[in-house]
């Protein structure tokens, strides 16, 4: 049994992002096609002695350039600030900005947003003040005494993972269903998929969806360094993220937000909007395997790809009339960890069989870093842009082929191609696998 096909078509009508490579769709896209890297030394905290002291940070960004009234977002955490910039671009492009006929109770939000940044200095200070070294435990009274003086109400509230929802709802007046999911690196792919499902079910007509996240902070980098998931390459940070390369040694942390507006086709057409692409399928699965390891056969990733393709009505092993494989491009999860890239390759082969080698698959994480909860949304957007422009972004820093990884990873250089159907994968720590299929909109 597979996912039932639903007739309510859903299209993308707006996109926006705030990334380490810039803050508007076309300039960032151009930089991706130019094989540019957004990596550099970490500046958000003193990371000099950390095993990983580089990352891909968003630079020179201010919500002042995007929102109507910055005062109502004065306390927004960095994640909400990124979300506001990305969503404002998407909202404007969709033409919903100023569209008087919009029923805001039929507009929903579904984000895959991470927690806000912890107020680390005060947190560490309160913990140390409350520390009873002899008993090696916190003295609750001393801790509370310090924390009551040191900690700020708004900085604490803004860490709640649903705060990007609150800021976007306030900015755009959205009153329909609003959800945030936090499935680690798969979150915003899952959010877009579930947003798509809400429209298909008829619960909403329009969804603002995507993700936002930053984990470039002391505890975020600590956590991933302890898991040995981050690259610890020495030398030039722009060479550190090497997905699918034999010398790959982990991912590079990025930050930012990708946001899209999707809506039912009839709603889009009725208001004269231009569909940028059509969301064709969504699949989701759980590895149910181990806390840190992915199932060695890529079982979960293959299941989510199969489910998404089935919903899109695509047989992965069939060829199209012009001889092309079933799809034209895969935006890989492609983190650059040993395990992910091997297993993703295996999963893609399992799904597409002999055609797998004919389907280009690249990882923009090689340039932008890993935006964690926001990664899926920006990668989905690159699929839409690939369809628009007939260009595939490369996997940069690909120098040494891994004998086990033998697909077409679009090494180092952008490629022109006929692109009508793309698939975007995201796999998260904890075992969630999510896949979206997006295709050229044809009336």
């Amino acid at each position, binding site marked *: 049994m597979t996912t039932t096909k639903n007739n309510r078509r859903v299209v993308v009508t707006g996109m926006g992002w705030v990334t380490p490579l810039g803050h508007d769709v076309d300039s960032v896209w151009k930089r991706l096609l130019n094989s540019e890297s957004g990596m550099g030394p970490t500046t958000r905290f003193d990371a000099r002695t950390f095993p990983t002291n580089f990352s891909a940070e968003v630079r020179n960004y201010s919500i002042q350039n995007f929102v109507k009234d910055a005062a109502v977002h004065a306390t927004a955490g960095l994640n909400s600030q990124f979300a506001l910039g990305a969503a404002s671009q998407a909202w404007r492009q969709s033409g919903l900005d100023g569209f008087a006929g919009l029923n805001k109770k039929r507009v929903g939000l579904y984000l895959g947003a991470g927690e806000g940044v912890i107020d680390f200095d005060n947190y560490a200070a309160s913990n140390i003040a409350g520390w009873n070294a002899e008993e090696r435990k916190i003295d609750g009274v001393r801790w509370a005494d310090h924390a009551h003086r040191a900690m700020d109400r708004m900085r604490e509230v803004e860490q709640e993972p649903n705060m990007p929802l609150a800021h976007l*709802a306030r900015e755009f007046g959205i009153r329909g269903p609003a959800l945030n999911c*936090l499935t680690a690196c798969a979150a915003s792919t899952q959010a877009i998929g579930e947003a798509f499902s809400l429209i298909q079910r008829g619960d909403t007509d329009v969804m603002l969806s995507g993700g936002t996240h930053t984990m470039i902070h002391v505890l975020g980098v600590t956590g991933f360094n*302890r898991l040995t998931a981050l690259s610890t390459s020495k030398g030039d940070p722009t060479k550190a993220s090497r997905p699918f390369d034999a010398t790959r040694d982990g991912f590079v942390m990025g930050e930012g937000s990708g946001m899209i507006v999707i809506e039912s086709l009839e709603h889009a057409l009725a208001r004269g909007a231009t569909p940028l692409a059509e969301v064709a399928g969504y699949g989701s*699965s759980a590895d*149910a395997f181990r806390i840190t390891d992915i199932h060695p056969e890529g079982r979960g990733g293959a299941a989510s790809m199969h489910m998404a393709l089935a919903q899109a009505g695509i047989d992965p092993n069939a060829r199209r009339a012009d001889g092309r494989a079933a799809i034209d491009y895969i935006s890989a999860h492609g983190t650059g960890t040993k395990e992910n890239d091997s297993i993703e390759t295996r999963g893609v082969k399992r799904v597409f069989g002999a055609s797998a080698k004919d389907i280009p698959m690249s990882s923009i994480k090689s340039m932008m870093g890993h935006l964690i909860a926001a990664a899926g949304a920006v990668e989905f957007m690159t699929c839409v842009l690939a369809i628009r422009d007939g260009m595939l972004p490369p996997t940069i820093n690909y120098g040494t082929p891994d004998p086990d990884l033998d697909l077409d990873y679009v090494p180092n250089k952008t490629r022109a191609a006929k692109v009508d159907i793309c698939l975007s994968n995201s796999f998260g720590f904890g075992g969630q696998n999510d896949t979206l299929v997006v295709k050229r909109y044809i009336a």
Partner: protein
Amino acid sequence: MSRRRVVITGLGPVTAHGVGIDPLWVALCEGRSALAPIRAFNASGFIAASGAELPDTFDVKDLVPKSYRKATKVMARDIEIAVGGALAAVRDAGLATRGTDPDSSPTIRPDRVGCHIGAGLIAAELDELTGALASSRNATGSFDPGQWGQQGMQELTPLWLLKYLPNMLACHVTIIHDCQGPSNTITCNEASSGLSLAESQRVIERGAADACLSGGADSKMNPMAYLRQELAGRFARCAPSDDATSIVKPFDATASGTLIGEGGGILVVEAEETAKARGARIHAVLAGTGASQSWCDDTVGLVPDSSGESLADAMHAALRDAGLTPADIDAIIPFGSGVPSLDALERNALERVFGADLAKKPLIMLAPSIGTTCAGFGAIAVAVACRALNEQKLPARLNTTSAAELHALAAPSTAQTLRHILIATPSLGGQNSAAVVSRHAEL
């Protein structure tokens, strides 16, 4: 279009009254409150020194397969609650899974079982983290990131980050019970588990799974998490010597705040056809769900929308989804926290939906007995609704002595004809969730 009906076949609430529906139901009917001085840490430095904690007999090691005991070392309390709830729900549903019967084949094919678990913002255990932080102090006693990067972080277990990621509730549950279908983690504060149940409903309806382990869990019994609740303005004043059992008075004219309870619950929700095919005992029907976003003047929702308009929209949506009208509802489980601003919001929403009939609709309140259970609330409430429908009985009500126009005053447990129960939850952040649970015989 006819759609798959979704039923509830397994109940696994975990509250201060224990694991499973029986101890909770008995305590609610007897009118017992578990609110008492907090034991997890010395809370006398906070406005509220009491809350509702799981009984000391709760030990997650007893609630996982032997082969999984090692993994309990990387479980935050929130994860332990979800894992305990899942086992209770699976057993209650009469399901064999890898977790309950590793040697026999599972009742439902693993790839047809999904998992949706709502979670809060999980705070790190301070004793563990501070032990490491304290070793990275400079000469003046302050935290030194240089020492931390070089040495201090090494004191944390490699899997440290994975203890506190919100999606690790679902991660552990899917691994233990081998749920390979769609899995998600909703993080919308107090609305989280209600929204998770609604997502399970949609996933089953669209055929992506036949059954889901669904619900949520939250524990704020950690000084940092607890402080965030205080800063959010949730607490009633309660000194260690005060009688905590009489302090939470939902909708009372003199209500002054709430006390926090740790807890949550996992339910087995299932397609009616597959539940019937396996001869399952059906507790109730998840007849309809609804969601909405409130307009928040202060953006983040610390000052909730007192009009209750959007919460009423969510209730209306759930009624519409169930094909019912307000007149069909026989009882209501509101969030019922005793926080005056939230009480006012809920009262106004209920008045919008039920009008003059509201005074005839009995309210079932949980917080006076088990505290305000945050992201775990919706799942506990739905479990209680299922039992109330089956027993045709209202649990006792505590503490509230003046609540004009509401059927909310303290009263012993009484027999009551119950066909449909409405559950609704607002949240900090403005997301609202509502559900209608119906007696199976009624539909």
